[in-house]
């Protein structure tokens, strides 16, 4: 079964950067993308998504609010919050919804640990 990762960022360029890093690290994973929280929630409720990478600063709902809503739909899905904004309040809010911090600008090295641990958490049929 294919592993599907959702990339959510209002910047097209940032989505391209994320897609490129994911492809390099997990070439067999399928990637889908959304440019805002509403689109992302629709994708998560209608599709099988295994892993999510969320931008923090987006128009409408921010990445932490989005992570909270995704968490209700998918209690154990690995979620990463991609941001350079590491204020205590943002860190605490992300922790509360079990989202992992990954630094922006996104690099393969920065993403590797999160994707590896997400892969380990997937059910065996994804291997």
């Amino acid at each position, binding site marked *: 079964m294919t592993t599907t990762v959702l990339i959510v960022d209002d910047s*097209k*360029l940032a989505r391209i*950067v994320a897609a490129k890093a994911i492809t390099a690290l997990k070439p067999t994973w399928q990637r*889908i993308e959304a440019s805002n929280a509403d689109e992302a929630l629709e994708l998560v409720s209608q599709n099988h998504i295994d892993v999510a990478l969320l931008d923090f600063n987006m128009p409408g709902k921010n990445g932490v609010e989005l992570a909270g809503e995704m968490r209700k739909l998918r209690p154990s899905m690995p979620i990463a919050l991609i941001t350079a*904004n590491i*204020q*205590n309040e943002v860190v605490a809010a992300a922790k509360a919804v079990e989202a992992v911090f990954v630094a922006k600008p996104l690099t393969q090295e920065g993403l590797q640990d999160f994707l590896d641990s997400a892969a380990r958490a997937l059910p065996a049929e994804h291997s």
Partner: protein
Amino acid sequence: MSDSTHHREPVKLTLTELERDALAELANIGVSRAAASLRKMIGQQVILSVPSVEVMTPKAAAALVGEREGDKLVAVQQAFSGSFSGRALLIFPQAKSLELVRAIIGPQVPTEAVQDIEDEALAETGNIILNGCLATMANILNQSLSVALPEVLRGTGPRLFEVAEPSSDEGLVLFLYINFSILDLDMRGYIAMLMDLPSVANLRRLLDEFITSVMDDGTEDLVTL
């Protein structure tokens, strides 16, 4: 390299969608880092809006800020030079200036003392935010910029955006609009980069190179459901 032609030939003012996207994203990363530093200084969360980017004339930028914030503005200015040169401005309404300084130095300092160190505190805040933005842009674009010490300016929009030599009034402002608020201290801040045409053209070329380097492989097979 065709830099010499930029002085005479008109440069297209409109950025492509991807150039604008790239610039907004660089600014977003820079300001997010700056917000995290500012958070440490004031002990309160700094909330940022999504940045928007416009290229406009200094006159239009002055009018835009004036319309929204009135005539009494304060700005922290830092000159920068390198492969693109100009000055960066952090602008907010003067009425909020003391409140911001108060937030930075804390409630125990008497009001007269706050006034005494107002400019110093503003310069330091501006330095953190503007340097965060400029250094992030420079790093991601693989350039080095030297950034001068901050200065505090007060006055109307036209005064803040005034261009030094009258002959260079065709200069452009790259206007990054970011709304930042600090809890109940409802402050709107604006960040503007004032550059001449050759610098805007150089920055644009660097953005294009950056976009190309990001786009160069493996991204065509994205699945859209």
